[in-house]
């Protein structure tokens, strides 16, 4: 350690726990011990109180033109419109769910895994497949990484996203093979180019059923000539390949490192802390135990530990704090929020690439500051601001409402400029550095 670590106090540690394993604390959340809060966050059943997912019937497909006929432009336009509407419906549903659930840990982890196994509706145009992947991430996202990784390599949306459909014997396509090792399970530099080529052959045979959208294994598409991966020869398939990768010594530090990086701090833990967390991850690759171990590290309470909230985390946290359900907003406002997220560079189900979203300073751009204020104004306009209106010191009231530890003199002075107007105080408070960054 280069610096002497100062730990935050218990209340701030609880607040930090809600920030990192959820989408921020709500009134009352901070009146419990760290241990109680951690138990609550890690053991809550996922979303009995959550809104049901949208029904996403296959959108109408334009009739295939007969020989010599041109495709019907109107039909195609209609189909595209239906597809875009379903995607927006899906985004709206998930945002609503993130806001609605009482304990948000499962949603936060689903969100984390969505960024990790980043798949985008830009290419996966069937919204039902994106929903299916989302449900898989939620179902497995707090259990063991083993079934999660096995599920993702044959996930229908993933297969479409990384061209698994086109990967067949005699015509290997490396996309899924490479990204799975580089970004999902092992980390760059821990495999060779030959490994990539061989893994692509091992994954041949998996494709999508055109009618049901389910992933299916077609034996005659599989390349059953033995593949040599990490120096071992066998006729690998998706499952035995995943087992092989997860068994590599670099896999656990990679996966745990990604969790720490996104949920705790861009500064990695020291070697001892890392080893303790890896022990919790263990041979069962236990995600819940890993979360508990990360939260129990002294570094978790390090005063210097800070994460820039990603736009979705910021927006969902704000809506939770202000009691604004996306589904209760009229379509125009919902569209405004969607556009706001686009302007901030982060729309759920649309990561910019298979590498997921950036972090840290990437979100603190000059352009983002203004968009954030506009989005905050739109949210505040539909919030019940009673607690703020009733509080004597509205600047303090906003601090409590947004569960910020303390305002700097700078921010206090800025918030005092709007003469106690509750809506303006709340909107500005949401843009304050103390709220945009989780300490």
């Amino acid at each position, binding site marked *: 350690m280069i610096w002497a670590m100062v730990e935050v106090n218990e209340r701030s540690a609880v607040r930090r726990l809600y920030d990192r394993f959820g989408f921020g604390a709500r009134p009352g959340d901070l009146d419990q011990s760290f241990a109680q809060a951690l138990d609550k966050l890690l053991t809550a059943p996922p979303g009995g109180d959550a809104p049901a997912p949208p029904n996403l019937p296959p959108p109408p497909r334009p009739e295939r033109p007969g020989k010599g006929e041109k495709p019907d432009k109107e039909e195609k336009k209609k189909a595209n419109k239906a597809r875009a509407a379903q995607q927006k419906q899906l985004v709206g549903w998930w945002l609503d769910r993130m806001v609605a659930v009482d304990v948000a840990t499962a949603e936060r982890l689903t969100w984390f895994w969505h960024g990790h196994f980043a798949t985008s509706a830009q290419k996966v145009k069937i919204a039902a497949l994106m929903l299916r992947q989302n449900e898989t991430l939620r179902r497995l996202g707090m259990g063991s990484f083993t079934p999660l990784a096995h599920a993702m390599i044959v996930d229908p949306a993933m297969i479409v996203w990384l061209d698994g459909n086109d990967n067949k014997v005699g015509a290997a396509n490396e996309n899924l093979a490479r990204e799975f090792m580089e970004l999902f399970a092992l980390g760059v530099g821990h495999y060779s180019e030959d490994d990539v080529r061989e893994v692509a052959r091992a994954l041949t045979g998996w494709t999508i059923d055109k009618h049901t959208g389910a992933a299916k294994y077609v034996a005659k598409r599989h390349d059953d000539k033995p593949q040599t991966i990490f120096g071992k020869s066998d006729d690998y398939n998706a499952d035995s390949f995943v087992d092989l990768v997860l068994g590599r010594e670099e896999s656990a530090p990679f996966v745990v490192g990604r969790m720490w990086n996104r949920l705790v701090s861009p500064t990695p833990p020291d070697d001892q802390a890392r080893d303790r967390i890896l022990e919790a991850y263990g041979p069962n690759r236990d995600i819940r135990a890993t979360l508990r171990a990360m939260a129990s590290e002294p570094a978790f309470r390090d005063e210097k530990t800070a994460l820039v909230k990603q736009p979705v985390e910021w927006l969902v946290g704000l809506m939770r704090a202000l009691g604004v359900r996306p589904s209760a907003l009229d379509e125009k406002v919902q569209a405004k929020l969607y556009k706001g997220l686009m302007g901030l560079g982060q729309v759920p189900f649309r990561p910019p690439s298979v590498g997921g979203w950036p972090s840290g300073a990437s979100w603190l*751009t000059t352009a983002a500051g203004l968009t954030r204020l506009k989005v905050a104004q739109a949210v505040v306009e539909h919030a019940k601001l009673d607690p703020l209106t009733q509080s004597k010191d509205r600047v303090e009231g906003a601090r409590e409402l947004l569960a910020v530890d303390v305002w700097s003199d700078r921010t206090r002075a800025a918030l005092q400029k709007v003469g106690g107007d509750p809506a303006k105080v709340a909107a500005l408070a949401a843009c304050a550095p103390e709220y945009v960054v989780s300490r």
Partner: protein
Amino acid sequence: MNDHLNPLTRRRFLTWSGVAAAGALATVGATQVDWDNLMSAASDDPLDPDAGVLVVLTLYGGNDGLNTVVPASDNAYQDARPDLAYKPGEVLDLGENLGLNPGMKGMKGLWDDGKLAVVRGVGYPKPDHSHFRSMGIWQTGSPDTPIPTGWLGRWLDVTDGNPLHALAIDPVLPPLFAGEKTAAASLPAGGLVLPKGDLGEGFAALGAASDGEEHWQAAAARSITDLHNAAKTLGGAVHGPDGEDKDQDEERDKGASAGGNSGLAAQLDVVARLIEAGVPTRAYSVSLGGFDTHADERGTQERLLTELDTALTPFAKRLAATDRGKQAVVLVYSEFGRRVKGNASDGTDHGTAGPVFVLGDRVHGGFFGDQPSLTDLDEDDLKSTTDFRDVYASMLTDVLGADPGQILDGHTQKVDGLVNT
């Protein structure tokens, strides 16, 4: 400040977490600028009309160079990718047995006018097939070790560290613009209109520095101040359409998994207006995504190259019509080319060297660098003939008037004659 993450920790983090390009930006983002002084300087002293301006256009996903500058009459090309290959009669002839993709008719016009240079076979030693690692190499300008700064970020550092001197037309900052001390500013294509009245005053006040504030919170505050100063300087020049609600996907889906922007024409429109207005920005970043064409490549790539062409050609012509615009040089690159052989999903997998386009009034048109051989390959991949840092060094020296050695770790070799000085 960056002192909470010393270089060793940072390196260890990058190797431990396995993320280089995305991690790079996570460690910077601070601007150490006295904004008031700069702003009064900017309004008193607009950009010198003779100062070179660099527009960097990144094609995300790995553009297939062999189907962009096409060796159509080479039998080895036809044999390697029979389903993907263009016939000699289909491409736009540039001479030397090469032709532009049929989607690039406007750029063929620029070529004929001597305003388009094609640098062939551009790459770096020990090519990496990872999008993120390779894009990281191109954007940091550091092929050997992952480092947290971009090549133009370092240029910002060694000039005066004014973030307004480099501007990304993008909500998220590209790593090439991350410096050790400074991160470039960014501007949405929709423009900057700040709130007025007491809300506006309160918002501006949130940007004030607060003594001893945590690193990221300080960066958040600075970004608000940067925003206000950017709006002061640029606001008048930019009031584009407020992001009409259009379908983002249309026909650009197939190669999308490796990132990048759409709406290139709108981005370039903003850049053109800013250049013409004489704002102090000297480096711009814009991007176009979708080039990760593992499958059904021909149609997808041709559409993208057409989009590139129909955005870039009027941009170049518009720039050529003003004195300030004539000082602008556009650099177009991608993180790698693609495999010589088609992959039988009618696409190509990640490859190595590719062509880089340089265009503008000051550009000396024509070919630079040698065309890589299609038969003398390195594990099925093209061998690069020009180091990408040679191109950067040309841009730094001849467009930005900087010393490349200081920015490119001692690399000073240029592509001679590329830009007229």
